[in-house]
């Protein structure tokens, strides 16, 4: 399942846990679980993790930190390497 899940993500045919649940015919809780394992093992990594705008939004004071309500995860280098090998 984990492998299939990672593969689906790498192909771009799923965008959320709900999509994964549908494609793999499992419950959403189980899909969440798969994603959690992939995150924990470092196959998925959080976007914006290296993004900080403190003191960087110079010039334009209308600027404040980018939206924090949208959290996305992408395949890490480890994940990409793994997918390439199968």
């Amino acid at each position, binding site marked *: *399942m*984990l*492998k299939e899940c*990672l593969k689906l*993500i*790498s*192909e*771009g045919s*799923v*965008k*959320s*846990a*709900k*999509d*994964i649940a549908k494609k793999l015919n499992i*419950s*959403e*809780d*189980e899909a969440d*679980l798969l*994603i*959690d*394992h992939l995150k*924990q*093992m470092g*196959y*998925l990594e959080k*976007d*914006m993790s*290296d*993004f900080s*705008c403190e003191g*960087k*939004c*110079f*010039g*334009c*004071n*209308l*600027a*404040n*930190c*980018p*939206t924090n*309500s*949208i*959290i*996305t*995860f*992408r*395949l890490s280098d480890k994940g990409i390497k*793994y997918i390439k*090998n199968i």
Partner: protein
Amino acid sequence: MHTIALVGNPNSGKTTLFNAITGSTQHVGNWPGVTVEKKEGFFTYNNEKYSLVDLPGTYTLGAFSEDEIVARDFVLKGNPEVVINVIDATNIKRNLYLTVQLLEMGANVVLALNMMDEAKAKEINIDINKLSDRLNVPIVETSASKKIGIDELLRVTVESISRKANSLDISYGEEIDEEIKNIEKLLENKDFPYPKRWLAIKILENDKDIVSLVSSDSEIKNYLERLKEEDKIYELEIVDKRYDYINSITKGLIKEPENIPTTTDKVDRVLTNYIFGIPIFALIMALVFQLTFKIGQDFLGGYVETFIGFIASSVENLLVSINAPDLLVSFVSEGFFGGVGAVLVFVPLIVVLYFFLAILEDTGYMARAAYVMDSLMRKVGLQGKSFISMVVGFGCNVPGIMSTRTLDNKKDRMIAILINPFMSCGARLPVYMVFIGAFFPNNGGLVLFLIYALGIAMALIMAKVFSKTLFKGEETHFIMELPPYRLPSMNSVFRDMWEKVWGFLKRAGTVIFLVVTILWVLSMLPAGVEPYSKESLLGRIGSLLAPIFSPAGFGTWQASVSLFAGIAAKEAIVGTLGMLYSPLELTEALRMNFTTLSAISYMVMVLLYTPCAATIATVKRETNSVKWALFMAVYTFLLGYIMAVVVYQIGSLFI
């Protein structure tokens, strides 16, 4: 004294159970860990004293976090006679993953099936006897918070002390089982303080603690290096196999009612619908603009305008009454209030718009918007994630462009940067508003929505063009967290809104003030010229530029000058127009100098042409290239100009 450990997932009720067992009179000792601590307490059962250790909650027993290492080390090295594995009965399968790992370690496990009250309320039915048989582990039902089942748990636990636990051997499939055996062989007569099979599995799981421990042995080190060279990675498979095992063990034993869809599920079915998702997003945005217009402009805007007007005339009267020099009176009334004041009038509008945007964000809708836009974005060759940077761009293009850093692929990122300025930022809003006020007072919300929509459309078209010409490359993918919808927290909504409004005010007091002052000076020179006239220095410069814009319908020197002032900061367009046309009221002056059609073409120009200096500087910094910054400044100008001309020329055929 016998030692008993409490292990379980976070929030499964370990501490509640710990308190229920040890009681408040018991001594609780702390061991400080690096980031976590375990707690020890005591209880007596049949006149014998036992030590109970509450461990931090974990989902797995890998080496992924300090918590896990603390829990695992205690189970393996603290020599607890019994491990009470606390399980959330409402979420058995997930919780059993930890159980399986404990059993693989060879721990002497007693399962406390906690939260039984909730499981019953949710009509989850568990065949406990069979589960106990299949797992070969005693199971006790508890409801720790209600102190139900505690005595039974203690009885079974104490009984189990004399029980001999066998470690669980799961089959991981031929290939992995073979590797496990090989490693076990290598581990023979080597002195690591862990069970051999467990160690072998952990090695194959690439557990960083264990791997570094066993790497001290050269034989094992070589073996691991060989695996690495052959790209043999088993960790995913091992996790999968554990779940397979759990599924086979629980098969037929857990009966849950059909999943009742939550409110979030139901709402999502509509809002993220494959077909209706995008139209609904458009509708919501249209509604936001309509409301912004009604509340911010029609309702609140009037008060602020009157207020600023009142202050302006009071200050002017005061200055005149104390015989202040004419130049000062002119600067204050026409430069400051005419210019900066014209921008300040829009504070309520900005407040309301950002209030609504913050609400959309805080409720969790924006994440759904990004979700539904994904497929559209991909069609134009953009990564779905770029939509996020576009949403940020609605606030301001500077952070919008900076947030493209999250796009891992350089080509995606360049495209996202180049189209970001078409996302109409908050600073451009006042420009549309004065024109709407002058020409479309009754359809403000609609016009505003169309402008923003045109911006998005232009962004998508240009993205397609760029991905077909300048940048070609493969897509990368991601998944998105769609948290449950929630009521917006007014606290964060207001904080968000306030930050933006404060930024707007600060700009009015700094950049805009500066630009207006410089332009005011230019319009007073050379000495003796009639202020704000065509003969002033500013008028002459503007007149040189004006013919360029004639084909677009706004070939006046005032319009030309204000567009260039807008490159410093977009609000300066309104500030400049306000000053150049004062003492006339700005809307009135616009009606005299623009037609409905040229107002439209002017707004199109403002939407699309060269972004402000801060944005251009950000492009330079983010792309690390002056070339791209210049490209951005020039191509947007040309595009804005061409579109304005097209709108005006085609419109002229009909009007």
